[in-house]
């Protein structure tokens, strides 16, 4: 269960905007954190608080395969991303590194910046505490839930290899 204040971005937010290639010569979490979404929201890393939630439009995370994008979002304290839809590679990357995400067009459209929202990722339930509205998002197939439960993909692979 995650609870936090919402930030909102539009459609087709690409991975260059999430973390520009000019910062990819240093893959440390701290470097990712400092520059996350800086071309979209001024000084995002300074104004975001631990546990905040990011609300996005369609095709969030389109573009490059850089895993640095979900790493950056996680590193700056975002607890969960809700979007109308996610770009394919970003979707995989988020699950693989353990950044909670949830697809819900209704919630992503309705929630406004500053709302306080509570999210139950496992059951796909998004509750806007500010407006007292509840939305049903997509849940994951059991196989992906297993990866999520392992914390990240490599822990899951390790368990599988050791079995």
């Amino acid at each position, binding site marked *: 269960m995650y609870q936090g204040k919402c930030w909102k971005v539009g459609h*087709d937010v*690409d991975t*260059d*905007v999430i973390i*520009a*290639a*000019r910062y*990819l*010569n*240093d*893959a440390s979490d701290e470097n990712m954190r400092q520059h996350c979404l800086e*071309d979209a929201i001024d000084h995002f890393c300074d104004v975001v608080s631990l546990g905040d939630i990011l609300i996005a439009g*369609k*095709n969030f995370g*389109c*573009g*490059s*395969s*850089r*895993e*640095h994008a*979900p*790493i950056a979002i996680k590193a700056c304290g975002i607890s969960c991303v809700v979007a109308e*839809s996610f*770009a*394919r*590679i970003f979707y*995989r*990357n988020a699950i*693989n*590194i353990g950044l909670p995400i949830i697809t819900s067009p209704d919630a992503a459209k309705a929630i406004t910046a500053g709302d306080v929202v509570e999210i139950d990722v496992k059951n796909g339930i998004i509750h806007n505490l500010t407006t007292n509205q509840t939305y049903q998002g997509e849940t994951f*197939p059991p*196989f992906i839930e297993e990866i999520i439960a392992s914390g*990240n*993909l*490599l*822990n899951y*692979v*390790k368990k*599988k*290899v050791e079995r």
Partner: protein
Amino acid sequence: MGMTITEKILAAHANLTEVEAGQLITAKVDIVLSNDITGPVAIREMTKTGMEKVFDKNKIALIPDHFSPTKDIKSAEQCKILRDFAKKHDITHYYEVGKMGVEHCLLPEQGIVGPGDLIIGADSHTCTYGALGAFSTGMGSTDIAAAMISGETWLRVPETIKINIVGKPANEWIGGKDVVLYLIGKIGVDGALYQSLEFVGEGLKYLSMDSRMTICNMAIEAGAKNGIIAVDDITRDYIANRFKRPVVEYHSDDDAHYAQEITIDLSTLKSQVAFPHLPSNTHDIDQIGEVAIDQVVIGSCTNGRLEDMRIAAKILNGRQAAPYLRLIIIPGTPEIYQTCIKEGLMDIFLAAGAAVSTPTCGPCLGGYMGILAKGERALATTNRNFVGRMGDPESEVYLTSPAIAAASAIKGRICAPEEVM
């Protein structure tokens, strides 16, 4: 029910007789690719988990092409991580600077990837190899780490959109870049999200292997999982002296299911230009208006192949880049570079006032070798025109074909080759 090429390749690699769209499968991979940006993250994750052993040193390709030859100390550290890992595990397909090319130009050229393969790469443009009749798709570093360890990956079988290419191009400048930009303009940057784009039709005979690679390369810009074209004589000619493993050809069944069908007529297709800040923001060349440019880049995994160099040279021959315009040409591999020298293209480029670089992704992703200042505008044969992609967040990138790029370099504004020839 019949299957598409994509379904057949996925079924074969999952050891199943058939699969259908939506199914989750675990598939064996033929080649796992990574570069100097995504590779070090994959290696870090492998080390963290204590699983450093690779499944097969002959099935991994590590290509330091993004910030290489290294642009600064930090990128040198990233490349060193990749190099040390390649040395330690005796990785067969590691290419050092000098032999290194832009990965999606290099792997097909060197015969590392071929028809029927299942390839995954920690680079979104890994979908390029669909042009060879392979299933190939981009993933992130952790997926690639998992595959380097296990030789497997999980996939959701995608639905397929059939793109029927008909007609004959109206002029010699129309090619793969125009086809794919037009398609992205039509369906949007998420128009094929989670889906496969399969290109078929009699018009394909007018599209060379280089052009087909450009088309499949940009499938990701429509959100697609992969782009794919069945093997034909053009493919067979291309792989003849390159690909050494047994060739497996897959063709879609007549009763295969398609989610959607779209027709593109080459005879009416015009040269395309994508305006900032999305590849879907396309315009026909005759609808551009006056767009002055500061820089032209001809290269990248999208258009850094020999055909692209030849087209650029044909237009630049005996002509000069406009005053104050920077013309940067980047042949995709050492072999392409050398052929440019042998064929005299390099003389044409240098006489035109171009800076010709050793192979690198460089400016395409705003790495180096042509970064834009605030307010500057580039016309590039690359694949993305997102905010800040080639430099300052207030700079602009327009995307186009090598023909339009070369002609525009001469004029200093976006224009058709007919204006300069």
